[in-house]
């Protein structure tokens, strides 16, 4: 193959190669932005779930009203008698 034809091929390869690299990495930039949004949404969902869990745990750890009433009644009776 003569050098002129080789140069033409090399020129084509240069153009195709650079377009290919830019295209691939540009798609990757787009994918990374999607990834960042997805990760942010995931984090938000996780934090809201954990907030709900904390609230639920707090309310479940709270003493039932019936117990409070019984304890208050017992304390009042004890104070009256002593």
């Amino acid at each position, binding site marked *: 193959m003569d*050098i002129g034809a*080789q*140069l033409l*091929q*090399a*020129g084509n*390869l*240069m153009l*195709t*190669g*650079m377009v*290919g*690299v*830019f295209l*691939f*990495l*540009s*798609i*990757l*930039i787009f*994918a*990374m*932005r999607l*990834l*960042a949004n*997805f*990760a942010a949404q*995931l*984090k938000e969902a996780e934090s809201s779930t954990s907030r709900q869990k904390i609230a639920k745990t707090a309310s479940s750890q709270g003493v039932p009203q019936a117990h409070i009433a019984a304890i208050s009644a017992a304390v009042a009776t004890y104070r009256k008698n002593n």
Partner: protein
Amino acid sequence: MEGLINLWQATGLANFTWPALCMMAVGCGLLYLAIAKGFEPLLLVPIGFGAILTNIPVAGLGDPGGLLYYVYYIGIDSGVFPLLIFMGVGAMTDFSALIANPKMLLLGAAAQFGIFATLFGAILLNFIPGFEFTLQDASAIAIIGGADGPTAIFLASKLAPELLGAIAVAAYSYMALVPIIQPPIMKALTTKEERQIAMPQLRHVSKTEKILFPLAVLGLTILFLPAATPLVGMFCLGNLMKECGVVDRLSKTVQNELINITTIFLGLAVGSKLAADQFLTIETLGILALGAVAFGIGTGTGVLMAKTMNRFSNTPINPLVGAAGVSAVPMAARVVNKVGLESNPHNFLLMHAMGPNVAGVLGSAVAAGILLALVG
């Protein structure tokens, strides 16, 4: 008397040839650069020693049946060693800086122009009598511009195995010379005001993003450039092992023992290609010259791309970080930081330069995949 003559003929003294002695001197030169000057010692020590071993007369270490022959055949001819090294590099790479600022990928892409321009230059060299580079040879030589040793060795072993020794030596020599080659180009293409530009602090990157990143890169490579999956796939595997946090033992092995063992044999195998008949040619001089051109062009286009991005971006971009797009991790990023500090002692660019630096690794792997797909 006949016994004495036979004994004499079995000695090295009787069998030395000038080209072999010359290559042993090259091997000693590489050892000197590695030990006395500290240039890429992890690779130049085994490569230099391999060059000495392969040129020993009579022993035939690099001939079929010899140790170096088998090491080359098993590790490099098959393409396994560069891929194992790439897995280790993936396990040592932190993509946070790139994930925090994805547009730095464009700098990694721009710096790959060094590869494709050199491909053109290698064919141009054919006008000089004595040079007969094919398109495959030119592609293998051009990948030196990617400033990534394993990628250069992988591509050369596939496209031009007879040029592998010269290409590997050129790639690693220029990577060691990054602190000398890059600063003059960076300073010539930027003003002092541009070099003083401070960049905003990078955002925090979550663990989820770090885990998903290698999977996303692999997914895109599978879809758009399967020819690059050997390199990108191993790189992503190494990075996933590092980031997922559940296989710390494997990650540590890949980062230490495996990469060290592979480096020893990779160096020896590359050294075995420094045989006199393959290395002492005019083509080697051409490869060394083209390698320097490739590095220079890659650095220049990276800086120019960063300058352009700085004009159109909402957030300021210091054009120096573009020079890190040539890969050569982390040396190129350190050079950017050093040149930046010379202009503004309070401006630390290291983390900002790590983005284009690791983008350069991906960019050169993608460029290698494109060359393999089109020329291989």
